[in-house]
């Protein structure tokens, strides 16, 4: 019986459908203080003074924090970037300047949330508004500095060059030039906001209950920030209401709660973000501009070279950045086989909300760029979009990319075929052609994307050679409890991906028992879970790293159980079989009635060990395994090396029609084909694909963080940001193929981010609809006002040029 590969009903659901989940905001302990954060109304402003006296005088207020307190009690957060970027001073509260709208400026802890808010209104901040830098190109002129002390807004620059680019251009039959492309700012905005409860205990430890999704990383940032040793920081999470990467940097808020607790003699302090705070100030996805793109093609439409300049806008601080300036190169040439590439990547700070890893982080920006390049070339050279892809797809695996990444497996043409069939390609081509003849705008777009999973942290050294990071790992502990129950703790704290269920499927297969007999501990606690520096739920890696750790731990437990059972039954280990008998999970001497169940084994080790007479001293039935994927440290000079272990792929096709009255992009048909290697739980995998697809469709046509020129965020409530709803969601025809990864023990590939596939697909479809009207889609956001503008101001003349020889 194999449990892996089955759509097992999720263990997590039992509590969640009853409303018995434990989300951070559900923590209602008596006597807690509540934190309110006062935020800058300006994108860029000098803080002359802060008068907190009226707030402090309000009965029920326990403490007020400002930049001064932070300077007194905290050190700036560790910076990952090199050179001047390392000197950026990032604290939990602004000090002399506010650098983006919504930046925390002061905080009040009071007896109730309402009181804290009242007190917040009594704080008087004297600001001088400064000119804001609201786009990356202006930022790079360095006339207005975001961080005065570093003397520049540029936070990273590097050239990724492979092959012989100049020669390829000299030999090209066509050179297509694309003036400018832009990937917009959005984020996946989990439904649960950030939240945290902190207590600075009398023993000088800080305990957090929070919804941070990378607790091991948070601990490493919080400890120096709060001037504590790492072991003094305890981070607990339980149910997390979605994260999508966005909750990685809520440590800045965790530290504020801790500080308020410290200042109030160790009272517990709770902070629950409201939605507007989340949209204003809790992390946006990376915004990217692509300039001076040139594409060389041969006479058949095969792309031979690309050169381009990419500018990444990371907002006001480099939290987790400039890692995005390397992470994109995991998918440098996307699914295409060109070998000559020169991309200059530059990043700058602006007076916008800092960016945070967001589902598809930094790779989708590159994949969107490549898909735009392919479609623009196809349209300009009159090659159908599907043929263009077939000419250019990578077809042989494993495939080493020009920058040394190894694509494990895949079959993009097969996915394209399947997607065409699912969407009913021929029918829609006929529909499109008829509609066009009648003057309507109908388009069909293809988006191919990669979900690279399991990072080699060595890529951080390409960004900053001094960083002591490389490889990747995940840990797991499996043990038998006193009653023989199988208990598993993971290094990851999930946020809806069903880790409890998929881990128990793996354990059940390895021990030949039922998944119902396996308890996978919910939540995560840095004091009690096992973990390593890479542990966490991010970067599409659980199916590989997490489950490999579980699998490895099972092997160790089995080895111990065999030794012990052989001793107890006076049998040889080879004759033992694992299974379930009348007395529960057991090991049995094959074909006999001699067996020992898990309780009996556990009891000997835990309660009755004199029986062992000193034998088997290493058998504890409580084993830890750390899985380490086989990575090498990349060549930092050449920017060359394998940056991720697995490459799941998605191929989407959208058919759209543009409403002539409203310019709304209506989706007539949509197909999504997925390949994540061997599937552990089809229902969960399918659910991840659906979720990522709908996220991406929302991002393409509805969701955008738009700022005005003074730095006001115009979409700071859900009513303005308009997350996609049930009535905007199209039907999705779903298919999957399985090309097992040769690099994971189970053939699985990390998945769940979905690589932003719909964003590329929707841009392609809109361009197909409007190309005849002289439109090149140069922005990833195609909301009705944007489409209206595109139709009114056709840009083909200036956006693209083709030089054919």
């Amino acid at each position: 019986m194999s449990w892996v590969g089955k759509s097992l009903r999720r263990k997590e659901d039992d509590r969640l459908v009853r409303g018995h989940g434990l989300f951070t905001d559900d923590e209602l302990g008596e006597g807690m203080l509540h934190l309110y954060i006062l935020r800058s109304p300006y994108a860029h402003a000098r803080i002359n003074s802060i008068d907190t006296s009226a707030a402090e005088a309000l009965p029920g207020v326990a403490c007020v924090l400002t930049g001064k307190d932070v300077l007194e009690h905290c050190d700036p957060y560790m910076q990952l970037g090199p050179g001047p970027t390392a000197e950026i001073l990032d604290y939990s509260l602004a000090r002399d300047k506010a650098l983006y709208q919504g930046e925390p400026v002061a905080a009040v802890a009071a007896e109730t949330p309402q009181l804290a808010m009242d007190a917040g209104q009594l704080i008087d901040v004297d600001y001088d508004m400064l000119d804001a830098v609201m786009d990356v190109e202006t930022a790079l002129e360095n006339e207005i500095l975001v961080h005065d002390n570093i003397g520049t807004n540029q936070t990273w620059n590097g050239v990724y060059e492979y092959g012989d680019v100049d020669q390829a251009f000299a030999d090209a039959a066509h050179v297509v030039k694309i003036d400018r492309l832009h990937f917009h700012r959005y984020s996946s905005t989990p439904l649960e906001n950030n939240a945290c409860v902190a207590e600075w205990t009398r023993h000088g430890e800080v305990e957090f209950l929070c919804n941070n999704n990378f607790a091991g990383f948070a601990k490493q940032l919080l400890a120096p920030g709060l001037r504590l040793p790492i072991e003094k920081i305890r981070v607990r999470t339980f149910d997390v209401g979605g994260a999508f990467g966005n909750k990685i940097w809520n440590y800045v808020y965790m530290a504020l709660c801790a500080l308020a607790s410290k200042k109030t003699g160790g009272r517990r302090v709770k902070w629950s973000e409201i939605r507007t705070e989340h949209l204003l100030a809790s992390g946006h996805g990376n915004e990217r501009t692509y300039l001076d793109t040139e594409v060389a093609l041969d006479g058949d439409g095969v792309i031979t070279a690309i050169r381009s300049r990419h500018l990444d806008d990371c907002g006001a601080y480099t939290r987790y950045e400039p890692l995005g300036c390397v992470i994109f190169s995991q998918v440098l040439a996307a699914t295409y086989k060109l070998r000559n590439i020169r991309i200059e990547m530059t990043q700058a700070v602006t007076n916008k909300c800092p960016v945070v890893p967001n589902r598809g982080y930094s790779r989708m920006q590159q994949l969107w760029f490549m898909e735009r390049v392919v479609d623009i070339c196809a349209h300009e050279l009159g090659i159908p979009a599907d043929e263009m892809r077939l000419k250019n797809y990578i077809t042989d695996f494993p495939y080493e990319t020009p920058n040394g990444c190894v694509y494990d497996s895949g079959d993009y043409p097969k996915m394209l075929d399947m997607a065409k069939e699912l969407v009913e390609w021929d029918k829609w081509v006929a529909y499109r052609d008829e509609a066009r003849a009648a003057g309507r705008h109908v388009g069909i777009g293809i988006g191919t994307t990669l979900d690279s999973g399991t990072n080699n942290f060595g890529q951080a050294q390409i960004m900053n050679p001094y960083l002591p990071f490389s490889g990747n790992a995940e840990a797991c502990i499996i043990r038998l409890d006193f009653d023989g129950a199988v208990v598993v703790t993971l290094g990851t704290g999930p946020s809806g991906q069903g880790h409890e269920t998929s881990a128990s499927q793996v354990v059940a297969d390895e021990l030949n028992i039922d998944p119902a007999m396996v308890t996978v501990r919910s939540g995560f606690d840095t004091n009690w879970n096992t973990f390593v520096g890479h542990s966490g739920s991010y970067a599409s890696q659980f199916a590989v790293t997490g489950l490999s750790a579980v699998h490895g731990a099972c092997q160790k437990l089995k080895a111990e159980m065999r030794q012990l059972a052989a001793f107890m039954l006076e049998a040889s280990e080879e004759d033992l079989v694992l299974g379930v008998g009348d007395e529960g999970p057991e090991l049995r001497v094959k074909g006999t009635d001699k067996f020992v169940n898990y309780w009996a084994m556990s009891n000997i080790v835990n309660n009755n060990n004199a029986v062992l007479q000193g034998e088997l001293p290493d058998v504890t039935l409580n084993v830890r395994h750390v899985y380490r994927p086989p990575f090498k440290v990349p060549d930092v000079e050449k920017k060359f090396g394998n940056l991720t272990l697995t490459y799941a792929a998605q191929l989407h096709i959208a058919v759209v029609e543009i409403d002539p009255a409203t310019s709304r992009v209506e989706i007539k048909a949509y197909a999504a084909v997925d390949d994540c290697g061997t599937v552990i739980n089809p229902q969960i995998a399918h659910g991840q694909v659906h979720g990522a697809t709908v996220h991406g469709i929302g991002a393409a046509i509805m969701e955008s963080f738009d700022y005005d020129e003074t730095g006001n965020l115009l979409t700071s409530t859900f009513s303005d940001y308009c997350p996609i709803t049930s009535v905007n969601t199209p039907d999705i025809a779903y298919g999957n193929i399985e090309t097992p990864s040769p690099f994971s023990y189970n053939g699985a590939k990390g998945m769940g981010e979905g690589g932003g596939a719909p964003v590329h697909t929707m841009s392609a479809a809109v361009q197909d609809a409007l190309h005849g009207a002289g439109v090149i889609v140069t922005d990833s956001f195609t909301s009705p006002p944007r489409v209206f503008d595109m139709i009114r101001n056709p840009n083909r003349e200036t956006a693209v040029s083709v030089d054919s020889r």
Partner: protein
Amino acid sequence: MSTTEVVAHEVDKIPVEITVNGTVYRREVEPRLLLVQFIREDLRLTGTHIGCDTTYCGACTILLDGEPVKSCTMLAVQADGSDVQTVESLEKDGELHPLQTAFSENHGLQCGYCTPGMLMSSVALLAKNPNPSDKDIRKGIQGNLCRCTGYHNIFKSIEAAAAAMREE
């Protein structure tokens, strides 16, 4: 400042009587207290969630005298004299409501944060329309956001529950 005695800011409170999941609660509340805060903080029924606090996401949906209402958009004092049902009322004697079972069986939830609100909107939908079309279902939950599932499995779950409830 440290742990000095701090006295809560005095505001005139208003008495209310609200029945929640069959129990009558008589409390004094601040006029500005939201119904969702009353449910979560005063009654400690934390199954009802807050996702946007601005009437957009539906995570806080409850039934007020049988009608689905976003409890972040109502003051507790406005619910005086009403009958409220929250997600905690769905399970009866250890038996899950058919909607709860269907959400689990059809993977209609991932993180589960939207689920209580989704369930309550669905209860209201199926009470009015036991045999909803795909379009009815979409409209029935259009005030409920889910950021994880992409909605399709939620549609399936509601359809499955409707079928199961028609058979009962």
